[in-house]
């Protein structure tokens, strides 16, 4: 490493972003996420290394940053990497570090027991019965978003969950829900009436 590079590693204010990390993750499985690094001095960070550390500080994954900044950013060099999550279920607080700038950032994820069942959701609009895309389905920490056919699946253990169905511009729907078997669930949601124009001003 050149001297200038080593100094930059120590001195440049650098920060990180972590995104596209699926949640929850089944215990013991591999998961993929993206990590970006930004140097305030505008350094080109291609091939610079980032590391993932577990809660003990042990390195669980390493990767080199790519050559192109993430679209829409001014200089966020990024990479995608896989790592294996712990075998214990629960919430985990890990960290990602960048040698450049001695930067680090925490990130959380939830691990869960392997699923017992698969729920398939088919979401339609109440009045027209047409499929609805990008509807958020949540069962506590389990979540998915419907595709163009209004379909999505969630794998989860049996149990009682708070089911929540939400899409911007539509009425929010929530209920208690018992997961006892693998099945398909039809969900209809209605367009939320446009709020009347406020009288204010």
């Amino acid at each position, binding site marked *: 490493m050149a001297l200038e590079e080593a100094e930059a590693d120590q001195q440049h204010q650098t920060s990180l972003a972590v995104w596209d990390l699926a949640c929850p993750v089944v215990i013991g499985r591999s998961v993929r996420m993206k990590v970006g690094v930004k140097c305030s001095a505008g350094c080109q960070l291609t091939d610079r290394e980032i590391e993932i550390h577990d809660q003990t500080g042990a390195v669980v994954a390493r990767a080199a940053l790519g050559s192109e900044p993430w679209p829409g950013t001014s200089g966020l060099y990024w990479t995608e990497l896989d790592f294996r999550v712990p075998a214990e279920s629960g919430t985990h607080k890990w960290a990602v570090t960048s040698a450049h700038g001695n930067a680090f950032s925490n990130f959380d994820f939830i691990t869960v027991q392997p699923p017992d069942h698969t729920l398939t959701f088919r979401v339609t609009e109440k009045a027209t019965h047409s499929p609805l895309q990008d509807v958020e389905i*949540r069962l*506590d920490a389990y979540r998915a978003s419907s595709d163009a056919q209004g379909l999505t699946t969630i794998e989860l253990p049996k149990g009682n969950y708070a089911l929540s169905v939400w899409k911007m511009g539509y009425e929010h729907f929530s209920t208690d829900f018992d997961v006892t078997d693998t099945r398909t669930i039809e969900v209809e949601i209605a367009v939320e009436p446009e709020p009347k124009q406020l009288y204010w001003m």
Partner: protein
Amino acid sequence: MAVSRRRFLKEGALGVGATALAGVPAQAQIRWDRMADVVVVGAGASGLPAAIMARDGGASVIVIEANHDIGGHAMLSGGRVPLGGGTSMQKKYGIVDSADQVYLDHTNHKDSEFRYCDRDLVRIWANENAATFEFLIDNGVKFNDEKPDFVNEGTVPRLCVAQVFSPDLNETINGSPGSGVVRPLEKNARAKGAEILLKHKMTRIIRENPTSGTVLGITARFEDKDVNIRGRKGVILATGGHTSNVAFRRMFDPRLTEEYQVAGEPWTKQNADGEMLAMAIGASLWGTSNQSNDAGRGVTKTRHIGVRYGYQNLKWNPKSPMFAQAGGSGLTIRSFQNLILVNQVGQRFWNEMDNSYAFLSACLGTNGNLGRNGKANGGGPIWAIFDADAVKREEWDPKPPNVDPNGWFFTADTIAELAGKIKNPYQLRPISASVLEQSVNKYNSYVDAGKDAEFGKPAPMYKIQKPPFYAAWSTPILHDTLTGLKINTKCQVIDRSDQVIPGLYACGETAGGFALHGLPRVTVFGRIAGREAAGANGS
């Protein structure tokens, strides 16, 4: 020949000029540059009806306006006029109403917006509802021909909406229906002979003695000179309220420090001219609890973020002649699920989905400020923090003219970098990168868990994770002036000894006692003030 006091004043008014006479108050030595029976101060939705009514009553009228154009805040308003009591529009659609019902609907003790109002004023307002609606129509205001709607917890449909005056933004300023109220009134006022003097800012109310006697006229500043304008029958204050005056508004709510912007600015400022100058000659305030009541539209949640003026029902049009001063239109929020709100230290402080006054109180809270540095009041800036996914979901284009990057909107590649970029005149200290990162990480963990453990945001849906990241000004914005000068049912201003100040009238948001939002209050009392001033005996 002995010169009587009244005779001297009249001669002075005719331009005889200033002559020092022993025993004659200094105010009587005014050289009057202009004169009329009635002087109206302010050419908005209260001053213009006052001017027309005074002319209809046979008085000569001069209107002064501090702005370069007429209209005041009403120019930018929604033109929504809920007047009832049996208007022609109500009758057309078979709606039965009465002045009594209007009164009852606006004095309901269960309604905290009306609970603290002066019921004598509400009663005269109710009596004049229907006549004022017809007055507006008679003076050129065109309403949409639609069945009136319910508002203000009313039991009877009363709301009618004015039509935008024209497609010309130079006439309407922002294309708002309020232009359909004030422009026709302006044209009718001028056609009926009222003279309107623009860019005249009132600097003094001239009374016979500093705190006694009749009000004789006003002094206005025009360009670099003072203009003394005599009002033989009266002076009507319709200056539009006090919300823009930080010192004045803080008399009622010390929290409302300078970071709070005002709806209607930068077109016009509600700078308390009328109230302060009237108080200087002895006037009283009235119904002051209305201004610090936890209800109504004194303080409002912003909806168009990333700009200085993000009032929820006023989105600045990039083609408006005022757009350069407004700075941006704002990103209109469809769902607060798409963002978090953080305070001046970068921490979340409340459920973003809440639209109640509790949310506003949280915004106005201490928000991490321990008050050690002499700036304990005010809640400080509130920033919306969101990511690229939110931009996509909301279908925003986070660039000018939609946002104002000059201190009201910031973009960065990471949350830590974003914290360092937030610089604004009201952001007194930088936001700590680690604090903002913690806030975002904590919120993201709530999204993962499906539950907001801190503030109970219902089913938090989306993480803030995908670059780039954004910070947008989302501080509450002030709107209504809900207290002002004490008036009686003739709109005469009352002094601190509970006596009428002869020759002085107030209406619109300059007057206190009735905390009703918007056009129905100001048009009715403007009309009353004009009529009463025209009918007064001259001084």
